[in-house]
């Protein structure tokens, strides 16, 4: 007889077998569909050794793609911060006609396929488009050039910061700002010393997700870029080109950079969620999209691992 006290089975718990089966299924699924592909990216990337990996990412076209991706993110992310803070401020602190429409419009890029987002710019700025001929006459190139890529990226990343801040600022209300104003602080002083610190973690979270999406965006950018090597190729587009040329080691090497970006984003995101956790949690819609996009930004740029080599 065992002398240890026996625990009666928990009335709401599952039998051990069921529990093992459920946990096992979940882990197997995660391993098969998330971990294995991720590991495969790095294995493929380093198949020919570190030298080949370095060669693949320091090749001039790859470097140009990297530079362009960083440039696009450097433009799109700050603009989104400005727009996001302004929109969230307006929505959370004021009542005005058309507020519901604005909230819906902010969500539009989430609900539209990125390809459509890109096509909209083709229709607007293309040769047969609304503004295209006039801009061409002025000597301004938008489509198949950097401005088009920036615009398409701006469009698809538009909701991230705003969506993150709106619930946070609505939850906080306006009384902190009112208190600051009543104490004699100017509007700018209030924004800098009261509003910004109150939203800083949410804002950082939005910036992080916005950046991941801006660097990983494939669909919309693919439509407007024109795929000119060394000029209008971003990193995801560069991976696709390498892959289509059957240059698998190079494709995987460059893709591994995006995978690292995704991993770094995930780690930072988890850390930020811990900071945010005590207060307001990020809105579920952004989380879903973020997670979907982080995984997509690696997969879209990453050739399918189940395909046999030629």
């Amino acid at each position, binding site marked *: 007889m065992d002398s240890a006290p026996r625990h009666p089975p928990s009335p709401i718990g599952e039998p051990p077998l069921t529990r093992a089966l459920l946990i096992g299924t979940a882990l197997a699924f995660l391993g098969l569909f998330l971990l294995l592909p991720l590991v495969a990216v790095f294995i493929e990337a380093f198949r020919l050794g570190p030298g080949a990996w370095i060669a693949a990412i320091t090749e001039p076209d790859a470097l140009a793609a990297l530079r362009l991706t960083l440039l696009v993110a450097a433009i799109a992310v700050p603009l989104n911060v400005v727009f996001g803070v302004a929109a969230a401020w307006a929505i959370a602190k004021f*009542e005005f006609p058309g507020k519901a429409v604005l909230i819906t419009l902010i969500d539009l890029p989430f609900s539209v396929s990125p390809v459509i987002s890109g096509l909209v710019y083709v229709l607007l700025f293309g040769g047969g488009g609304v503004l295209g001929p006039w801009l061409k006459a002025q000597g301004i190139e938008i489509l198949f050039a950097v401005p088009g890529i920036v615009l398409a990226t701006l469009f698809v990343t538009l909701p991230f910061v705003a969506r993150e801040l709106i619930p946070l600022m609505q939850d906080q209300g306006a*009384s*902190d700002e*009112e*208190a*600051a*104003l*009543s*104490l*004699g*602080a*100017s509007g700018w*002083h209030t924004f800098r*010393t*009261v509003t910004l*610190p*109150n939203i800083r973690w949410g804002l950082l979270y939005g910036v992080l997700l916005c950046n991941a999406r801006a660097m990983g965006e494939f669909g919309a950018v693919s439509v407007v870029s024109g795929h000119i090597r060394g000029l209008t190729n971003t990193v995801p587009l560069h991976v696709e080109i390498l892959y289509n040329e059957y240059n698998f080691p190079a494709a995987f090497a460059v893709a591994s950079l995006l995978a690292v970006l995704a991993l770094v984003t995930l780690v930072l995101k988890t850390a930020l969620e811990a900071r945010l956790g005590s207060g307001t949690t990020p809105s579920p819609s952004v989380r879903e999209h973020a997670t979907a996009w982080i995984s997509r930004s690696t997969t879209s740029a990453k050739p399918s691992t189940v395909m046999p080599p030629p």
Partner: protein
Amino acid sequence: MDIQVHDIRKAFDGHAAALNGLSLSVTSGELLALLGPSGSGKTTLLRIIAGLETPDSGRLLFNGTDAAHRSVQERNVGFVFQHYALFRHMTVAQNVGFGLAARPRARRPSRPEIRRRSEELLALVQLQGLEHRYPTQLSGGQRQRVALARALAVEPTVLLLDEPFGALDAKVRKDLRRWLRDLHDHTGHTTVFVTHDQEEALELSDRVAIINAGRVEQVGRPSEVYLTPASAFVCGFMGACNGLPVQVRDGAAFLNGATRPVADGLRVADGPTVMYARPHDVALTTDDTGPGLCGIAEAVRVAPGLLRVDMAVPGLDTRLELDIPMSDAHWTAVRPGQPIQVRLTHCHVFPS
């Protein structure tokens, strides 16, 4: 500083008017309570005085000069929010010093000066030693006092408090009430506070303004508004009140179908009206010749120092509530189901 509010109107989109031609004057140095049920417009009035809302029409005078177009910053009011609105990322000392640190460079005190002032104010609100805590590390009562110290730091001309004790538990509320009264007597700021708790208003303030449906029903000293209410609303809002529908004939009031008057010597016109009497204004009597009421004691409950009786009276739809003090010699004779006889020692009749 004294404040004059003249015929202020304010409506929020799609809602009934919050303020409906409200007028009120606040005398310099007094502690005034704005008392009213929720939705009566009292907080809106406070926010208009502070400059956090703009009235649709009406005049607002500070010391006789127009203040309606001054911005919040220019009005120099100390506003204490219901939920304190402390800056959560700043320490207690930084919160208190915020108003001084936010001043334009020319008028901004030096850092050591700001620190000295914060410490002084924290001593005033009895929170020495908590300078480096964050608001989340404080209790509700402590947060309230930090909010007060922060508002006082800018040397406001008037102190406005929105439901200052609303979020505190009963014991802390009682202590803080007394403490705020002492602080007011000590600093002498003109103070206006909003409350829906009549006991708080009566105990704390010099004068009470009772607000209902966006208008002032009555302004007066606590004893005035309690003992001589100006309207049925004030009477009912300031404490429990029995309403007796009566017919008045030659100054005597009769319940429906009764031959004995409930009260006489009233100076009101003949006809139907409603008489109001508080439970403690109804006394036991054995004299059945004068005005009075007979009925059955239906429910009898003991409360500290008194007996609460629900009395059924013929010709009256509702039960009459009475509080019989235990100092009354006959209180032990009141038993459930037994007939009792009472008279009104005090009652109110309002012109309809």
